[in-house]
């Protein structure tokens, strides 16, 4: 195996990894704001991909406009879900396990809604860069890999700026650290939770748009992607921005390396075994954040 092959594997892995990282960031954000896990994140990702499919491939809107519209539409979906479903349950103090079950019934709803609207067949669309492979020296890569990596990197930098500089981002971090203190300082929790859901769903939609050229969209693909995003969150460290990013990239690269070097059919098993091992031996992940268990 030469240097070119390694580079090629790394580019592919980085590409998948950044997509998982975007979904993982959404999960991590929601965890920070509410202490809840949204298991439907993977299916919101699929839905984002399908909305893009309608706008870009069916109605042939220009790519940037379709991209933006999809993110806005999915962000609104996230906002409505938060206001109508999650926040009322969250503020009533319903047992978190019941809310988890609620997100699971949301999975059933979204999957079947997609099945009803877009049908069961795998569908894909490409990027403006097209589908013909690019030769860079000895490496042959598909153009959408570069496209995806570029978009994901820009988005991650923008998010980092948002959390460090903007007042809303700072408020979000404040709620994550000390919810009570933040609300005493005048942060409106319900607005912030809704905003977090909006952001998380928007991120999932971007991941859905980016994944479509690589893995054809099917209604039930969300569960596996969600599980990998969870693996990314848990490996990286729950509630940590860098952790979700690093975890996603680790998962993506590990998956591609295992598929190339060992056997492609068991790549998912490999990831899940890593996940279980992390849950067992290092449940706080690499960047262990300050999460104290109630004892």
């Amino acid at each position, binding site marked *: 195996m030469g240097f070119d092959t390694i580079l090629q594997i790394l580019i592919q892995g980085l590409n998948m990894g950044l997509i998982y990282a975007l979904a993982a960031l959404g999960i991590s954000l929601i965890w920070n704001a509410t202490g809840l896990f949204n298991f439907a994140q993977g299916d919101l990702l699929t839905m984002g991909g399908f909305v893009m499919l309608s706008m870009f491939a069916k109605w042939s809107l220009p790519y940037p406009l379709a991209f933006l519209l999809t993110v806005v539409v999915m962000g609104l979906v996230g906002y409505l879900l938060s206001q109508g479903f999650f926040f009322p349950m969250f503020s009533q103090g319903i047992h978190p396990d019941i809310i988890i079950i609620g997100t699971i019934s949301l999975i059933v709803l979204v999957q079947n809604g997609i099945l*009803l609207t877009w049908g069961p067949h795998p569908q894909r669309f490409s990027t403006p860069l097209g589908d013909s492979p690019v030769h860079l020296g000895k490496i042959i890569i598909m153009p959408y890999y570069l496209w995806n990596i570029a978009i994901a990197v820009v988005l991650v930098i923008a998010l980092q700026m948002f959390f460090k500089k903007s007042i809303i981002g700072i408020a979000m971090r404040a709620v994550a650290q000390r919810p009570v203190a933040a609300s005493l300082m005048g942060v409106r929790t319900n607005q912030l939770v809704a905003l977090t859901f909006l952001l998380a769903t928007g991120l999932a939609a971007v991941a859905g748009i980016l994944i479509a050229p690589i893995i054809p969209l099917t209604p039930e693909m969300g569960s596996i992607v969600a599980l990998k995003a969870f693996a990314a969150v848990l490996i990286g460290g729950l509630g940590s921005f860098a952790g979700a990013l690093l975890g996603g990239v680790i998962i993506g690269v590990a998956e591609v390396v295992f598929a190339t070097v060992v056997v492609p059919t068991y790549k998912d098993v490999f990831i899940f075994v890593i996940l*279980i091992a992390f849950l067992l031996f290092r449940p706080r992940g690499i960047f262990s954040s300050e999460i104290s268990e109630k004892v």
Partner: protein
Amino acid sequence: MARLAYLKRIGATQVIFLILLLVPLSGIPSYQFYILERGLQNVLVVLSLVILLGFTGQLSLGQAGLVAVGAYSYGILCVNFGLSPWIGLVAAPLITGLVSLALGFPSFKLTGPFLVVNTIAFSEIVRILILNNERVTGGPFGLNGIPTIATGLKLYYFMLVVAYLAAVGTLRLGRSHIGLAFKAIREDEVAAESMGVHVRNFKLLAFVISAVLAGISGVFFANMAGYLNPDSFTFNESSTYLLMVVLGGMSNVAGSILSSFAVTSLPEALRFMARSRMVVYAIILLLTVRYSKVLEIENFKRLYRRFRPVPAAATGSPSADHPEGKL
């Protein structure tokens, strides 16, 4: 009073099983009979979740994986090794129990969402292994020609007897010292441990008992279908089982049995809506969870008490005995 509540609870289960005993004799059409059979098969999984989630408070989404292990070990023992179905019937649940140790061992440290992630991963691993070991399991083409214990009404009554024993066993388990230890773990793990409950062992025990029940359900599934395919044991199945238990009131045996029949027949009852039926079904489930606070059995009891002119001393104790739906 506690004794009375116990008799009342046993009573509801008896009535349900008496109805189930009589219904097929009325000569219902074969399609409805099939749904009844499926409901009965689901009752076993739901009882397994009553023990795991209702009693012990361990939220699991790996139940379909365990049902798959039971169904496939029965199928493989009978088809590949040519054993008698009766041996398969006994061996498959035991194998499932053993396999569940692989799920239980990584799980006893975990709670809530982490446990859910772990159980989903287990279920997916089982599914991928079945899908890719074509020589043993038939892979995506499925496992064909599985011999059955019995067919038609005989199988139904056999399943009914097993389900009845499982239901009564679950009720008794809930009252035994083991069940009380389970419930102590559900309420507060640390307090339970400090009161002398060996949390790890009891959690493992809950996993194994629930796996054996899921395995029996898998054997019945193989018997009813005569054909196994990994598509029958997906994440969707696991979530449906979970919703059945939630609608049934978590640790309420009679309620869970009723809800497993209701949820099994709901998509069939909505069949006239053709393609959108699963969406409607999902919305019903979503609304039930969203308003679970309103729908809680406690609230109905409170409402009932308000309109009933009895002295206050007679009320309260059954509900205090059974903190239903609290997890």
